[in-house]
């Protein structure tokens, strides 16, 4: 159909109308705009420019919905009893409240389940950073003997046989149920699990009453040169996403050597990825082996300079903080818990 454009004014008006429509579509809550791109609205305190979404796995509402369905589906495990949510339980800060995670048949393994909060701003996954994206992370627990003990073939077969996923996969990926699609969908869902708008964020935005006196003193200590937590727990998400040895677990016989087992670099002995400090009050116990039960235990651990070992980070040293100072730090950590509605 061709409509001859009568005049430049008319064409300009037409372009203006389209632009307004596009703009309207771009505003408001998370949804898919005319161009099909999903835009995630981040809560206060999170830097949208720091998002990492791989080009081959853009976010769409349908994909995220599929990912959420898979996340809670225990059919990904060999006997249908373990889902991602079993160890990454939304009620427990997307961890499981255990020192060490427990998978199928009650098998326990050596590390704790990390939180899934704010992984939107990360690339490396697992305590030892052995994969570079959420897409690469998702298939691993599914196949791990201790976690879900399954195979990609079996997962695909089970989900196909259920008859509940054909349509979704066709719509999102244009293919049948596939392990690759499962990983992408779960990763997309995980990227929506964000935490912000904490008392600390409100404080930083100008609301001076958002933090208690104690928490404010804790913040000052946190950023001070003397205590220097920000050295590793840096930025808006309180992590440099790098690997450090603070001595946790290094005093055990046959200690878990963390990233060393992947890279075999001597300098990586006993190093583990810095986790975010957001939502910490929901994810006890702490450290990769869950050896520290409370936030005060964590502060005391750093206060004594960690656990001495040959490869201890040079940033670790005894801090000699008073009890009041340590209590202030704990109060600050508590103020990092997000209050945004996580409607997953």
């Amino acid at each position, binding site marked *: 159909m061709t409509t001859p454009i009568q005049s430049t004014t008319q064409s300009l008006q037409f372009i203006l109308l389209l632009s307004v429509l596009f703009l309207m579509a771009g505003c408001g809550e998370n949804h898919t705009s005319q161009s099909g791109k999903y835009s995630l609205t981040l809560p206060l305190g999170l830097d949208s420019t720091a998002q990492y979404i791989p080009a081959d796995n853009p976010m769409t509402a349908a994909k995220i919905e599929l990912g*959420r*369905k898979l996340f*809670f*589906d*225990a*059919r990904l495990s*060999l*006997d*249908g*009893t373990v*889902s991602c*949510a*079993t160890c990454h*339980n*939304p*009620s*427990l800060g997307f961890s*499981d*409240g*255990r020192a060490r995670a*427990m998978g199928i*048949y*009650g*098998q*326990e393994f050596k590390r704790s389940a990390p939180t899934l909060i704010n992984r939107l701003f990360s690339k490396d996954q697992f305590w030892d950073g052995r994969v570079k994206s959420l897409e690469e992370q998702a298939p691993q627990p599914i196949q791990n003997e201790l976690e879900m003990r399954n195979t990609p073939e079996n997962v695909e077969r089970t989900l196909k046989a*259920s008859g509940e996923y054909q349509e979704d996969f066709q719509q999102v990926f244009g293919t049948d149920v596939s392990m690759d699609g499962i990983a992408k969908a779960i990763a997309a869902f995980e990227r929506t699990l964000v935490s912000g708008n904490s008392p600390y964020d409100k404080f930083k935005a100008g609301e001076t009453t958002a933090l208690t006196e104690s928490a404010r003193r804790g913040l000052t200590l946190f950023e001070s040169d003397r205590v220097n937590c920000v050295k590793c727990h840096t930025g808006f998400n309180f992590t440099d996403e790098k690997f450090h040895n603070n001595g946790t677990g290094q005093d055990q016989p046959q200690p878990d050597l963390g990233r060393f087992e992947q890279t075999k670099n001597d300098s990586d002995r006993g190093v583990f990825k810095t986790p975010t400090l957001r939502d910490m009050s929901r994810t006890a116990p702490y450290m990769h082996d869950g050896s520290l039960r409370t936030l005060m235990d964590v502060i005391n651990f750093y206060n004594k300079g960690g656990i001495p070992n040959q490869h201890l980070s040079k940033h670790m040293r005894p801090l000699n903080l008073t009890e009041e100072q340590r209590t202030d730090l704990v109060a600050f950590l508590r103020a990092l818990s997000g209050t945004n509605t996580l409607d*997953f």
Partner: protein
Amino acid sequence: MRQKTLLVVLIPMFSVGLIIFASLFTLEELNASESGDATVVIGTVTDGKNPLAHAVVKIATTTITDTTDEHGRFRLAYNKNANGTLLTAWKEGYYNGGVEIKEKNVELEIVLTLLSDKDNPNYQWVDPAPSFVLKRYALALLNKVSNCGDCHASIIYEQWRNNGHAQSATNPRFMDLYNGTDVDGNAGMHPGFRLDYPHSNGNCSNCHAPAAAVRNMIGVDMNKLEGVEKLGVSCDFCHKVKDVHLRENMSINSGIMHMDLRRPPENHQVFFGPYTDVPHPDAFAPTISKSLYCAPCHQGSFWGVPIYESYSEWLASPYAAKGITCQNCHMHPDSVTTNFAPGRGGLERDPKTIPSHFDFGSRDSAFLASSVKMETIGKTDDDSLRVNVAITNTTAGHHVPTDQPMRNLILLVRATTAQGKELVYSGENTIPYWGGSGDPADGNYEGLPGKGFAKILFERNPQYVSSSKSELQTQISPSPQWRIINIQSDNRIPALATDHSVYNFHIRTEDLPVTLQTELIYRRTFKNWATMKKWNLKDIVLAKNITTIR
């Protein structure tokens, strides 16, 4: 004079000689008349070609045995009339063998057939029921032997078919827990395994329907059993288990995974059993008479937590060291049965050697009541009545209660005046919430003076049911064992141990005389679960003491 001396010498010599000569004959005659027809039989046990050393040779149904030497040779002395004439032999790895002794002092050869050393997954299970029960009248009329019950109907089949093992795959309460239904079949009634894990069959079949679990050890849908699989732990299943080796992780490995099944190849048959003297196709399996044989199903963990512990409780008890096994009590001979295949070629045996297949357990009140003893002593002291109750696990080889954690005991303590007024209770021990909340007349005893004995499980984490809308599971207390649980408390009474508890009541002189009644009841499940499921289960009274306090 010489002749006389000669006679004095010769006559004694002659007499002695006569006596010696006579004894050569009569001794044998004497023996024969005392023991009937004493015979010695010698021979060799072979596999058809080579002799077999260390084979156990026996006169069937007796205790007359010998073990073959390095050359496979044996020697037995037996009495044909008293002991019968079937000579049997067995060696590890072989079927039992047997041969009739036809003539005296004959050298016999007993040939043993080698057992297949592999399990045959294509074996078709034999149905226990006699042909006439299955309405296969033609077979019954023709006296064809095809099922266990065709020979073993009157004794073993009858004993087995009403016990817990026969019903393990179809017990309606088990199915209610599996499917999450109530007694009326309404769905969505917790606790229910399928409600918590809608996409899992669970590994329940590994113990409850082992004949089906062999198809898939991850788990068979208990609603989709076929044929003999529905008959739970049936004859053919147990008698195909040659040995048991408990594997380490008892959460991953359960039931059949600990068993060495040895189903025979096509056109062969084998039955493993406790006798060496029932010839082919039977084979002796030493483990079948040991407690270890019961362990695969009566010991097990969920999510790393020990749930079924009857075997380890027994191991820790004095009975294990004394060699008193599960079978000794639960398959105790009835002292009356002398033949378990009467009219079908079964031999008459000492009744003490025939185990009963009743498998007494939690459905048998008398058996349960015999396991404990209770003593109540009430003493008044000023204005208080102090009641001491001692419950001893006198006879169970394991804790009381044992096995499935939903089993519990409730001790009820009541002190009433002659007018029927209850004394005021000032003590601390009361019956917990799982004794049921509501009208005591309906068996709800929460808060009443007393005590509950059970292993109580509680959920570690709230769990998400797999669904498209993230949905937390309904909390159930006590928690069923298939959820991610920890043991909150376990105050069950170990073998030969005594539990002491104290109950204090306010008492005034005008209340006397007071009737003090203590009652120990056994419940097969928690009262609050039974209420949720609308099960009507009778409380079984294990002990009752009534005293008058003056």
